[in-house]
């Protein structure tokens, strides 16, 4: 059965300060060489989906620059391929809501022109590696027009969003906004019959200012919705604290193997062709992720270093995320710091954030 994909990227967060001044949440750099939307695009591509739409945010510059015509995800195609569709710009971007009906209605043609049976709709900002094919085959067997993907909230995690009440057969009976450990958290991803989705848009057109999930919740008694459990890693980034933590998750052996070193389903991104990393004689790198093009003379611990970063002699970088093209001077010290692109830290400067309040340095800053 043919399935197409729609990635919702017209939402943002106010928690990131300067990091989202000039870019969308979907194009936030992550993990040394990725942007958050790479996960949604790679999951589509690795599941054999060759027609993918993106609902773009108003500040789509960095997103469009990154995804281009979709070649890294094999979406630069003649049949199908990548469709970038502007989201609605009334309130600029929604905060929290992933599936604003107004945005989806603006893509009506995307649904109408294709002859696919199903559409997978997903968020653009979670770090995960999911194979959609088992979801598609489960949905195929189900009588329900919608199957929602959920994950049991791991103990100690504080997920925000929608939680599902499931009955014994796995049907969704209710949608809540309160969750607790082991709740069934809606992973901002579902599969829907394409024709049902077109009908849905007509039925609820007057509620276009609402999120599709709210509409479903309010009309639960008329809905037949199935569920599908995702058991893998789900990295959710709500704020700079999560940002450092979910980046550091890349140093976890199991997560690295599941999400990033998965031979069957690699995470693709725009290639930049940087040279290998040079570790100088006195370099001391521990438990860290380093991207191509870096030259490292100093110490790096529990940190994520993006492309083409130079770290000087006796410099110390700990518990930090350093985005591309940073220059960290000799003897500089950074702990719990996030630096955006092209940041320069001059020799000897010391910057300390804390675990709960990391320091964020915006693009091109020189300190």
């Amino acid at each position, binding site marked *: 059965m043919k399935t197409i994909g729609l990635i919702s990227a017209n939402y943002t967060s106010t928690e990131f300060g300067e990091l989202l001044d000039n870019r969308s949440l979907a194009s936030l750099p992550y993990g040394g060489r990725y942007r958050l939307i790479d996960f949604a695009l790679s999951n589509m591509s690795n599941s054999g989906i060759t027609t993918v739409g993106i609902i773009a945010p108003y500040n789509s510059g960095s997103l469009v620059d990154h995804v281009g015509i979709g070649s890294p995800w094999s979406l630069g195609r003649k049949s199908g391929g990548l469709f970038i569709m502007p989201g609605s710009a009334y309130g600029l971007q929604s905060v929290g809501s992933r599936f604003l009906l107004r945005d989806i209605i603006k893509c009506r043609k995307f649904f109408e022109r294709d002859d696919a049976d199903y559409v997978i709709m997903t968020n653009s900002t979670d770090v995960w590696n999911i194979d959609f094919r088992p979801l598609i085959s489960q949905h195929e067997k189900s009588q329900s027009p919608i199957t929602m993907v959920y994950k049991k909230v791991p103990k100690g995690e504080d997920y925000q969003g929608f939680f599902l009440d499931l009955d014994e057969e796995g049907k969704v009976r209710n949608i809540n906004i309160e969750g607790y450990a082991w709740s069934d958290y809606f992973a901002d991803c579902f599969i829907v019959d394409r024709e049902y989705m077109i009908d849905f848009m007509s039925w609820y057109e007057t509620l276009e200012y609402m999120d599709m999930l709210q509409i479903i919740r309010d009309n639960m008694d008329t809905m037949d919705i199935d569920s599908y459990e995702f058991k893998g890693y789900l990295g959710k980034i709500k704020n700079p604290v999560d940002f450092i933590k979910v980046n550091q998750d890349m140093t976890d052996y199991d997560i690295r193997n599941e999400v990033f070193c998965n031979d069957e389903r690699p995470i693709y991104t725009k290639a930049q062709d940087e040279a290998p990393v040079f570790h100088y004689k006195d370099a001391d790198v521990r438990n860290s*992720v380093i991207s191509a093009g870096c030259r490292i003379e100093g110490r790096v611990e529990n940190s994520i270093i993006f492309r083409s970063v130079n770290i000087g002699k006796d410099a110390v970088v700990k518990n930090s995320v350093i985005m591309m093209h940073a220059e960290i001077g000799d003897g500089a010290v950074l702990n719990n710091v996030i630096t955006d692109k092209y940041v320069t830290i001059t020799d000897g400067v010391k910057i300390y954030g804390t675990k709960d309040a990391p320091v964020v340095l915006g693009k091109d800053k020189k300190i």
Partner: protein
Amino acid sequence: MKKKQCIAMLLAGGQGSRLGKLTTNIAKPAVSFGGKYRIIDFGLSNCLSSGIDTVGILVQYKPLILNRYVGTGESWDMAVQDGGVHILPPYAGETGGEWYEGTADAIYHNIDFIDMYEPENVLILSGDHIYKMDYNLMLTEHIDKNADLTVSVIEVPWDEASRFGIMSTDDEGRIVKFSEKPKKPDSNLASMGIYIFKWKVLRKALLDDHEDAKSSHDFGKDVIPKMLADKKKLFVYRFNGYWRDVGTVKSYYDSQMDLMDDMEHINVFTKDQKVYSNSNFYPPQFIGPKANISDSLICNGCTVYGTVTHSILGSGAVVGDGTVIEDSIVLPNATIGRNCKIKNAIINEGVVTEDNAEIGEADGDVIVFGRAKLSI
């Protein structure tokens, strides 16, 4: 089709048998180099930075990995409408098929291909040299001098000159004598195996050479000496940068160490004349909590738990806990177990070593370990 000022023909068909186990199942130009590159990247990237967008790649020996690696040429910005890369293997005609019998013979069999582009000049390249060069500078000299053939040369130490094809020139740079590996060289200008021919002249020379029963159909041995004898206008172009023919295991090892130790020579970090490659789906490298890396080049996709000193780790290589690697090159996707000792060795692509393995000797020659298990 648009006419081209100059197209390139890249010779990539030789076996490179002196590289031993490195080329048992892979053509020499596709052998890994400098961690994330393959040897052919240098020639193709030079073409890109010189504005040459049409390249014929002549393949013959075990070309499957090479063909796949080159693909559409997109990695070198050569997926263009009027030109691009073309893989050119030997093919059959009305009277059967023939293998390429020599460098000149390979080009002879593709005369029709070159004619399609009606180029003024044809640049002949080897797929197994490590260097960065702007072919435009050479082409400009070639055109200014109205040369029939321009041979790129590099000064070599006098005591090594007898290992090369040596060009003797007059004051204008016109070639007066060409001697292949002369016992007593009277010049130290060595041919780099890079030629720009006027296509009309080369076309005729190839047709003549094909008719010559005594010819071995080689540019250096047959075609160029014949052109010299025929009083054609042959000039040298002096190249001053870093250039290595990685024909032997030792030169292959040494030039990779050069790339790491002395980035002035061939700077892969620089933004101008960048070296491009097709190997980009690896995550960034992960360096473990007890790892110890110094003086080394490490690629994307590597996972390092052990100690790595003065070595190169290729894309996707894994180094286990307690392992010590010194003065070695680990080719892409090799997995080195725990508590291994590796010294002065080249670990072949995709090879998996057992725990506690000891490979290479402190004072011995560099060895190549294992048979490549390839995937791209």
